[in-house]
Structures are given as C-alpha cells and as structure tokens.
C-alpha cells in the first residue's frame, strides 16, 4: 500500500476535527505556550515523549505561532538552539521529555554554560506524586543540571508557572547570558488552570551591574595615557554587549592594537591594521608575543581561559591588567587584576572613549607589531595538488566573500577555520570554545540557518565530530535548509592524532578512523547533494557550484592526514614559547 506523506501538524488528517474547541479547559501546558508566545518565542527545538505529551498537545493547538524543529536526537536540539542563540542573541528554546530526553541535553547545557549562551530549556518530569520513586523515565534533572545552569527550576505549583517562565527568560538573556532549565512535572502541564501570563517577577538576588564605576574608567584612562605598550584583548563579552563597533571606534581613536580570543573572533575586523589576529594556544605569534610584552592589557569580556593564557607564570608578566567583565566572579579568577571594571562591555567602552583624552604615544610599539606581523605570519606547508586543510579554509573564505556564518566542532578543523577564515563582522562564528564539544558544529549550523535564513551558513566539521550528530541530516532534508556541510576529512581524530604525534612519540592510540561511511551516499540517502573531493583542482571546480546551489550540501573533503595545527603553545609552556612559528 502506498502511503501518502502528510504534513505532521495537519490536524484534520489526524483527528478529523478542529481541536481547541471552546469547551476545552485550559491546561498548564496551554499556559506555558501562552507564556512562550508572550516571550516572543517563534522557534522551538525539541523532541516529544511521555512526560511532555500535554505540552506537545498544547503546541499542536498553537502550531500557527511556532515553528517546531524536530531534531533526531535531543543533543541535536540543544546544539541547534545554541547556534540560534549565538546568531540572534536571544534565548534558544528547547523542549525535551523526562529521563533520557533530559539527560541527552546535558552536553549542550554544559556547553552553553561555558560559552555564555542564552537558552531556556523545558524538560518534562514525571508526575509530582511519583517524583523520587524511580518512576519510569524519571531522572533528577534539577540535581544533574544545577552545576551547569545559570539557574534551574522545578515547577511545584501551577500558579508559579508564568512567573518561572518570565524569570527563566530574564535570567537567561540578561547579565552574563546562560542556560536556564525549567523542569515541569507531567501532572502540572496536564492539569486545568485559570492563570494567565504575567510579566511580574521577583529576583532580589539578581541585579547585573550594567554601568561601570566612573572612577575605575578614569583609572584605566590614566593607565592608557601612560602605557607604552598597550593591548586590547577582546572576548565574547563584546558580542553579548553588541559592542563591536564601539570597540573599533575605541581602538582606532587610541591606536591600541587588538587581539581576540577564539570566541571573540569577529568582534574586531581581522583586516583592520590594528588587528593582531587570535591569541592563545594556536593563535598568532604576534598576538601572543604582544600579550607577553605589553605593559597594559585591557581585557574586554574574555575570561582568561587556560587555552588563551598558557602557563600563568608567564602570562603578561610586565603588564598592568585591566579586566572589563559583566561577571565580577571572572575578574581576578585566573589572572591578578589591577584595574577591575564590572560592566556591560558596551557601556564601559562607550565611557572609555569619552574618558581617554590622551592615548599616549606608542608608535614604536605599533611599528614593532607590524614588523612582527610581516615576519611571522600564519604559515603552512605548500602543495600543488593535495588538499591542504588550511588552503581549504582560505578558499572557503574566498568563495563566500568572508561573509558566511561558520560553525565548527572542536579540534584541528576548528583551529584552521579560526586561523584562516578571517572574520570581518561579529556573530558569524559559532564554535564550541569552553567545553570543546565534538558534534556541536553541524546541529549548531542548523540553528544558525533558522536564525538567519538569508545568510550562507557553513558547518565546518571533522570526520569524527560529524559522525556524532549526523542524524540531523534529516532536519536538512525535511526543512530544505541550505546548510553547507564541509567535512574536513583527515581520517583521524586530528587533534588527538597531532598530540599523540607530538607528545606520545607517534603512538596513535584509537585516533585513526580507518573505516568510514561513504559520506556522499549517506547524504544522498537523505536526498541531500553529496560531493567528494581529494585534490585542489576538483575543489576549485566544485566549490562555486556548491555555494550557488540553494539547497543543502555535504562535501567530503579528503585533506592530508599528517597536517598539524601550528603555531602552538605546548601544554605547560608560556605564551612566549610558541613552536612551529614561521622560520
């Protein structure tokens, strides 16, 4: 028998009658949906299950108000929501069922916590009467998510639901953004209720400091006027504060050079002469030496992660450190800070621009850095025909005019993309920085494409990471989202292999992926175009075609396996001890 495919949410096909008839009693789930509409939510990533059946029923009734993206695994849903939040700057919304549905979200929640992404995550829970009895599909979601959420709630009383939803969105999206989990027992979402959305909430312990202390700004302005070798380190806080343009204005006014963190790529145009590129373990030699040599380091919205600082004993040893951060707990956590400024990045830079009347004289410093940039640029081996991953990134930049939204996993391909896809604008770089999550890039690209339907979105993934979440190809197929998946395929867990080569005498323990699927056929099985290229000539032929096509593509790029990411600060070494610098 031939079954004709019908849209899933066509109610008449499924029930034969219009739901939401007047006599139906409003439920907790309806109240939740009402609250989501009031919070301006129009996209939900999720996966149904037993404990969220009432919520999915309410969503069905309100299906005109939302697009619900049915990922094929809860991890796909949460990473997609992260990509969505990264591009739009507003909370990504996720719904998953109790027990395994909720536990499948954990990696994404932890990832969002580390990289300060706003998420509001609704998990189903077993009915209140059986919580704590090891009921079917019960997991202690509050216990599990407490260390990896900005805040979490279990709804104990239906009258609290609208307030909790309001608080969840407020907390997720203000101050230092982060994930908030709301755990909803099934009997709460199923039970009748009379309440309605209410924008009132009460958070006496939550007042993010948005404006800087003018005295501290004055202090920093004085330090700038005295500095001979000042440097700005720009992090993701500049993105959250929407302060990229302000940063450029400030840097140009004061002629202070700028380096960015991995997550801060795009906060300052890479093409600006004051840009030193990315700093850190695989940053540029010039950026890292500038951090070593500077006498004033102005950190704006970065958290001095260990992959940035290297050995702390050698980090900015001669510098007065100023740190602008909206989260006071980040200041002084890793690096002693002489001029702390608790503030939103935009407000702080805005006031600094006014406060700095004399930016001092540091021409010699700028000249030195320009020389260093010219003498020690990023470099890689050359080949006439073989596909080099670094070359691939440059070609990607070329074909997309450097304007694509790039989403990556973690590892070698991530570092090459960070090094060679030079970003001109903010919010075009989606990567798992803090947690370093394999399998993040592809679903995050789906979220990004939904957030920015008219932009070119490229998932740059490794062959290892892609195989962790490739089930989401179904979403591309279903939605015809034109995401371009570029698999940087070196037949290995590249970064693991590189470290085994460098630090474990080439003992490649479980890091070579000798057996792989045929990614082209795999794509085709989802009705997605697949390409496989293994040399430069073919790539140059295929690439324009891929980006002219308005549908999804999977491109298996067979790059050289033995390529390593350089330069590098070896673990335990200082930022001045880079190896693999251009000879």
């Amino acid at each position: 028998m031939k079954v004709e495919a019908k849209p899933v949410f066509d109610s008449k096909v499924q029930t034969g009658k219009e739901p939401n008839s007047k006599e139906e009693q409003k439920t907790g789930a309806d109240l939740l949906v009402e609250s989501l509409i009031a919070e301006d939510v129009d996209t939900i990533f999720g996966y149904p299950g037993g404990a969220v059946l009432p919520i999915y029923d309410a969503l069905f009734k309100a299906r005109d108000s939302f697009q619900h993206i049915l990922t094929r695994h809860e991890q796909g849903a949460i990473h997609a929501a992260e990509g969505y939040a990264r591009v739009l700057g507003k909370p990504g919304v996720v719904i998953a069922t109790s027990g395994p549905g909720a536990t499948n979200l954990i990696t994404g929640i932890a990832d969002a916590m580390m990289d300060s992404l706003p998420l509001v995550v609704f998990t189903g829970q077993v009915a209140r009467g059986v919580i704590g009895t090891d009921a079917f599909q019960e997991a202690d979601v509050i216990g599990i998510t407490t260390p990896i959420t900005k805040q979490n709630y279990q709804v104990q009383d239906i009258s609290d639901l609208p307030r909790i939803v309001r608080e969840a969105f407020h907390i997720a999206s203000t101050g230092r953004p982060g994930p908030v989990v709301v755990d909803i027992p099934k009997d709460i979402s199923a039970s009748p209720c009379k309440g309605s959305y209410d924008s009132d909430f009460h958070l006496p312990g939550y007042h993010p400091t948005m404006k800087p202390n003018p005295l501290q700004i004055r202090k920093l302005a004085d330090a700038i006027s005295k500095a001979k070798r000042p440097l700005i380190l720009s992090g993701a806080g500049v993105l959250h504060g929407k302060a990229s343009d302000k940063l450029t204005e400030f840097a140009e006014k004061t002629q202070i050079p700028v380096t960015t963190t991995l997550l801060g790529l795009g906060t300052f145009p890479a093409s600006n002469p004051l840009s030193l590129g990315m700093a850190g373990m695989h940053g540029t030699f010039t950026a890292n030496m500038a951090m070593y040599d500077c006498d004033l380091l102005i950190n704006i919205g970065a958290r001095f992660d260990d992959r940035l600082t290297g050995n702390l004993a050698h980090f900015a040893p001669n510098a007065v450190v100023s740190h602008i951060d909206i989260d006071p707990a980040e200041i002084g956590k890793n690096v002693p800070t002489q001029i702390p400024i608790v503030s939103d990045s935009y407000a702080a830079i805005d006031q600094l621009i006014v406060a700095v009347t004399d930016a001092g004289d540091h021409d010699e410093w700028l000249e030195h850095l320009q020389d260093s940039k010219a003498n020690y640029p990023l470099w890689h081996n050359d080949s006439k025909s073989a596909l080099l991953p670094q070359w691939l990134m440059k070609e990607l930049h070329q074909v997309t005019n450097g304007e694509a939204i790039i989403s990556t996993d973690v590892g070698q391909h991530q570092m090459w993309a960070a090094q060679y896809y030079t970003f001109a604008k903010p919010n075009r770089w989606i990567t798992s920085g803090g947690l370093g999550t394999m399998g993040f890039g592809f679903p995050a690209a789906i979220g990004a494409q939904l957030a920015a339907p008219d932009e070119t979105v490229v998932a740059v993934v490794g062959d290892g990471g892609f195989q962790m979440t490739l089930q989401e190809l179904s979403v591309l197929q279903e939605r015809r989202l034109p995401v371009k998946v570029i698999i940087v395929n070196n037949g290995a867990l590249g970064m693991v292999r590189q470290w085994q080569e460098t630090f474990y005498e080439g003992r490649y323990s479980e890091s070579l992926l000798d057996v792989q699927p045929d990614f082209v056929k795999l794509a085709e099985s989802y009705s997605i175009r697949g390409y496989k290229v293994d040399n430069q000539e073919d790539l140059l032929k295929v690439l324009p075609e891929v980006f002219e096509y308005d549908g999804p593509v999977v491109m298996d790029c067979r790059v050289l396996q033995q390529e390593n990411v350089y330069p590098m600060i070896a673990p335990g070494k200082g930022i001045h001890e880079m190896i693999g610098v251009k000879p």
Partner: protein
Amino acid sequence: MKRIITAVVQNRSGVLNRVTGLLQKRQFNIESISVGHTESEGISKMTLVVEVEDNAKLEQLTKQLNKQIDVIKVSDITDKAIVARELALIKVVSSGQLRQEIQGIIEPFRATIIDISKDSLTVQVTGKPEKIEALIDLLRPYGIKELSRTGVTAFLRGHQPSVTEINSYSLLK
C-alpha cells in the same frame, strides 16, 4: 585560613544543593554549614565556616556565592565584631558514680545534662567552637559514645567598634 561567611538566600528548593555543589565544584573546603529561617519570610541564612588558602581564593568564594541567583547577600564576617554560637550534643559513658564528677566538669561551661540512662548521659552545650572543643577534650577520657555538632551560626553584633578595636574581637584567625 579559616573564615566565617554568611549568605542570605531565597528559601527556594535546591538552593542549599546549589551552594554546596558550587563549593565542591570550585574545590573549597567547608568545615561546617548551618542553615535556617530568618526574621523575613521566605529568606534563609547560611553560615559557612570554610578553610581557604589565601585572599584571592576567598574573594573567588564570595564572588561565586554572590553570583548565584538565589543568593541575596554574602558577607565575610570573620574580622567583624560578631556573636558566633554552635550547639553540641555529647553522649558520655557514665555509670552512677561518675555522674557527679561529670556534672562538676560541665558546670563551668554552662552545659546541661538533658538525658540520662543506666550507662550514659547526654550533655548539651552551646558556645563558641573553641569552648565546645574544650569541653569535648575534657569529656573524652570518660568515653564519648556519640557526638553531634550543629556547626556555627553567627551574625554581627549590634555595635561595630572602630577599625582599631576589631582585632581583639576576631574569633577564628
């Protein structure tokens, strides 16, 4: 160094878990923690005695506590003029003949005997941690069968002396 930290928190489910989880995650050593209601409805107060390496660690601890949404106010009251009290219940092996002797020991501590059985008695003592330590030491030779301490609870005295006087009030340094 040992510090007494108080945290005023919203009395929501999970808040104690969040605070202790945070201390564990950030590798802070808690010596004791006590929690209870305050004069305001819905507001509880935690008193933590923690062992920290240096001032930087201490600053991190208070900042991380402050960062929690349900934490309203964090104070390090170690160097302030404070009243700090702890309660301990001590069950001591004691036959009839020794009761008088033990009574004599605990009297100067203003402790009381709150339960007596054939072969044991239970002493209740309140005071600063040092006082409780001292009494425990004195009772140990008789054989302590069971010991239970509440941990310190503390707050600021009504009058705070000027800075120069403070050191003499310091409790735990």
